């Protein structure tokens, strides 16, 4: 117990100021960069896609910066620290998913779209209904993802500043939201991309330093690290942790206990692998490069960086288990999410903790800014220009709407984040992936690869996938009906009152049902409708494979 209080004290005393200082420095440096790169005229292209002027490598680093969110850095490191191999299993889905983007989506999207995901989906279908449907699902996915990041910011502050007070957490969420909106308004996509690039470099460097540091302590023997983390877990004061110490090296501690848990994990894996290439803010990044060749290069870089990062997370997770220990992690304010920051403190003291915390904040900022650009592009380009104004609006009007939307989204993110801060981050992220895999990916693949696909198929698939994934979650144990924790008497579900139980869907993750259903509805809707536009189909297919017309679209 003494060790715990000293640790808790160490993370607060004296360090709060240092943590804030490092965060402020990051904000100032990135703001300077954002202001510097933002000069020039503010066209819609500039705002949404930075005029497609980034190189493949720059964009690849920015993708890594966008994708390696606080949930994957703090969440996965913590999952590995406490659940061992099952956390590792979880991280692999996030990586393999990029092959879907590389092989099937990135290049063809780049060649057929210009600003938003809806550009591609509505290319050869009826503009208005498809744009509206796509916008609804883009906004849903972005909102869930946004709330996850903002909730993460609130959780992080309680750890880093040692305060768990409502007001302090809300204040931090408001500051993060305000800074993010500033980035977006001043810098547009160009500024945001640079923030993501800077953050990715910092995050991956810090993870690499921590990994080498941890491995150095074990003579660069992975086996030695594993042995020690098992030994430390054995000495845990929690009898359950001590008894399960050996299981850190084994699959099945979390996902393999019951048949239901196993099926649930299959469902989660499907959502991860098929969701990534349907995340709107990831797709938006493919428009920031000039050609499909550069889009390919982007994903190549992203895969190297993201894969490398998850390999580092394995060592960081086990390192936290061995050097910090499961008891200290569980006792810290952010629990599992605090494993990586606590390891940083253990290795390099308050400075290292400050740096890692600053990077974690930066991570949230960069991801949230990317999401805001994507969502505001959907509002301004798809809903305002194409649907409301039927394509008859000026650049100035469109950009103005995009900026107003960004402010509105910032406010939603701030207030939503305040409400959602007690929610489990991983759950919100998994939700975003499930909705993306169900509502977005089937339509993307069908419209790129299936000649027969048409408007009815798209609408059935998008709305069907959206309703099925969100509906099943509402009636899942995630929202209500998980057995109450004997200590607190509260249910770990979203509805914490254990007496309220309206769940009937047994799985936490809807993907196993909602993804195949969305694919089926897309097929069924298409074959029951006669609509087919041979001219548009020819144009889209030729353009998607040859890149014809992309350069011209960018010139004016």
């Amino acid at each position, binding site marked *: 117990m003494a060790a715990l209080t000293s640790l808790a004290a160490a993370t607060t005393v004296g360090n709060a100021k240092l943590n804030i200082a490092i965060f402020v420095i990051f904000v100032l440096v990135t703001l300077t960069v954002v202001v510097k790169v933002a000069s020039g005229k503010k066209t819609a292209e500039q705002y949404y896609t930075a005029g497609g002027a980034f190189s493949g490598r720059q964009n690849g680093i920015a993708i890594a910066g966008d994708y390696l969110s606080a949930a994957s850095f703090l969440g996965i490191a913590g999952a590995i620290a406490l659940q061992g191999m099952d956390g590792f299993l979880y991280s692999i889905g996030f990586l393999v998913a990029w092959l879907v983007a590389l092989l099937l989506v990135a290049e063809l999207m780049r060649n057929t779209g210009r600003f938003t995901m809806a550009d591609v989906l509505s290319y050869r279908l009826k503009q208005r209904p498809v744009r509206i449907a796509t916008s609804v699902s883009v906004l849903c996915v972005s909102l869930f993802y946004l709330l996850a990041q903002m909730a993460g910011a609130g959780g992080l502050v309680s750890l880093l500043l040692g305060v768990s007070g409502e007001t302090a957490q809300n204040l931090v969420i408001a500051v993060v939201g305000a800074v993010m909106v500033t980035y977006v308004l001043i810098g547009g996509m160009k500024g945001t991309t640079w923030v993501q690039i800077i953050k990715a470099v910092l995050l991956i460097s810090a993870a690499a330093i921590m990994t080498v540091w941890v491995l150095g302590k074990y003579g660069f023997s992975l086996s030695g690290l594993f042995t020690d983390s098992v030994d430390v877990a054995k000495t845990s004061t929690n009898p359950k942790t001590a008894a399960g110490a050996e299981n850190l090296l084994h699959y099945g501690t979390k*996902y393999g206990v019951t048949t239901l848990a196993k099926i649930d*994990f299959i469902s989660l894996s499907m959502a991860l692998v098929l969701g990534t290439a349907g995340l709107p803010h990831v797709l938006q990044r493919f428009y920031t490069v000039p050609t499909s060749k550069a889009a390919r290069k982007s994903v190549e870089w992203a895969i190297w960086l993201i894969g490398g990062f998850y390999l580092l997370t394995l060592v960081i997770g086990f390192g936290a288990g061995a050097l910090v220990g499961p008891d200290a992690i569980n006792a810290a304010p952010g629990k599992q999410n605090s494993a990586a920051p606590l390891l940083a403190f253990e290795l390099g003291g308050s400075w290292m903790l400050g740096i890692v915390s600053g990077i974690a904040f930066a991570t949230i900022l960069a991801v949230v800014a990317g999401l805001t650009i994507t969502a505001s592009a959907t509002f301004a380009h798809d809903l305002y220009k194409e649907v409301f104004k039927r394509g008859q609006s000026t650049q100035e009007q469109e950009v103005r709407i995009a900026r107003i939307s960004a402010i509105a989204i910032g406010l939603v993110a701030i207030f939503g984040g305040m409400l959602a801060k007690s929610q489990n981050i991983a759950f919100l992220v998994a939700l975003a992936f499930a909705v993306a895999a169900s509502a977005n990916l089937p339509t993307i693949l069908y419209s790129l690869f299936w000649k027969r696909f048409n408007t009815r198929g798209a609408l059935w698939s998008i709305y069907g996938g959206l309703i099925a994934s969100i509906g099943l979650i509402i009636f899942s144990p995630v929202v209500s009906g998980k057995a109450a924790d004997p200590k607190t008497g509260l249910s770990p579900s979203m509805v914490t009152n254990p007496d309220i139980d309206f769940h009937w869907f047994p799985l936490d993750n809807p993907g196993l049902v909602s993804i195949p259903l969305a694919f089926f509805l897309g097929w069924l809707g298409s074959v029951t409708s006669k609509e087919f536009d041979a001219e548009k189909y*020819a144009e889209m297919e030729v353009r998607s494979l040859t890149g014809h017309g992309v350069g011209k679209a960018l010139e004016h």
Partner: protein
Amino acid sequence: MSAQQPTTSEAYQAVQSSEEFQTLRKKFRGFVFPVTAFFLVWYFLYVLLSIFAQDFMNRFLFGKITIGLVFGFLQFLTTFAITFIYARWANRELDPLADAIGSRLDGVKEH
């Protein structure tokens, strides 16, 4: 938006039905579809073994390194390998074909 469509739809349809374009299409799909099928099967094999065949996956190979960990590393390895092979293949095989068709389309438009 009209500035984006200087090429007539007849031209696009002519290209679409041309032998050259069909070769490009076949080549592209002939690569990405089987590779996608492969990595999905390979990934779900890993997931299924990890949750249904734990006795096998949790066996120690050497030291504290289990078969399951090696399997996990192999997922990284195959992902990196597919990325490397696809990018090289597409740069060499796909791009010249696509560029040729693209520039011919521009030529058609000008005459």
